[in-house]
């Protein structure tokens, strides 16, 4: 897919509601493809959320998170224009990251 991640961050007072959509197969390693072969495990393992360059939330996840993960977080002490950066690392060592400004 063209965009591996989509971040939506909205501000209410000084609280930011962040929603991030990620593109990832999150294969458990137990699924069989159309030919009956096992599809190898391949899933995001680590997620990090940074605000203005500082880590505010870190997550470790498993293959039991749904394909094309959708996460929601809430951050406090946030103001419009603050920079949000979300990154992930998967079981194959692949990475992705995206940035968004708090609206």
């Amino acid at each position: 897919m063209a965009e591996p991640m989509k971040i939506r961050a909205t501000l209410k007072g000084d609280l930011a509601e962040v929603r991030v959509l990620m593109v990832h197969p999150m294969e458990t390693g137990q699924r069989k493809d159309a030919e009956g072969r096992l599809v190898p495990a391949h899933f995001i393992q680590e997620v990090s959320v940074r605000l203005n360059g500082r880590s505010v939330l870190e997550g470790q996840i498993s293959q039991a998170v749904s394909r094309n993960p959708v996460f929601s977080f809430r951050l406090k002490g946030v103001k419009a224009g603050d920079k949000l950066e979300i990154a992930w690392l998967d079981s194959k060592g692949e990475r992705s990251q995206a940035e968004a400004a708090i609206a």
Partner: protein
Amino acid sequence: MQRIAALALAAAAGAPCALAQDAKTEIEKYQQMIADSSPVELFELQGETLWSKRQGPKDASLEQCDLGLGAGVLKGAYAQLPRYFRDEATKRVFGNEDRPSEMEYLSAYIAAQSRGAPMAPGTAHPKEAAAYELGRKLFFYRAGPWDFSCASCHGEPGKRIRMQELPVLSSRAGAGPVVATWPAYRVSNSQFKTMQWRINDCYRQMRMPEPTYASDLTIALATYLTVTGKGDPYRGPGTKR
């Protein structure tokens, strides 16, 4: 003791109805929750990229395509489909379980541009009227090893398969919400699926031979369903089980 037993029996008799109603409410809640947390937007974004991508020997994009409302006009175009187009584009099968096709991303993007527009498929052109008639005939046509028609499941109120309530698709009330929410992200395959796919899957589930994609049969059925359910504002692309 007898009175307690009688009360218990009365409660037990009422229980299945209460349970069914609770289940329905809980399932509706689930449907709302997955729609709120859906990755469907990613498919729309991918379609948007494809719409303006230059490719092929003429280095052309789709941006000047006419979907019925004029060259390059996307807003509200999906809500007026199906409709008759004089030129017939090549009809090809697209996509499967493991390999989503570009057509699916495009349909997500194009459909999204009709959000809020009332469903208003073409009915005036003689070919559109003929498609509606053929679709209506097909809806009630019994065939296959189980002697099923669409109407077997979707022709009467109060039917369900396991816990899923079956909408009456030959009525406006039943068809309206359905045509206003396809194409959709289906969580059971984690794929974006079109109404074309849905119709094909129904035929598969009725143990009938699968129709060819973009065949006159499937377009006729889609026409019948959309005309029957017309009027609702389009609110897709949806997220479904």
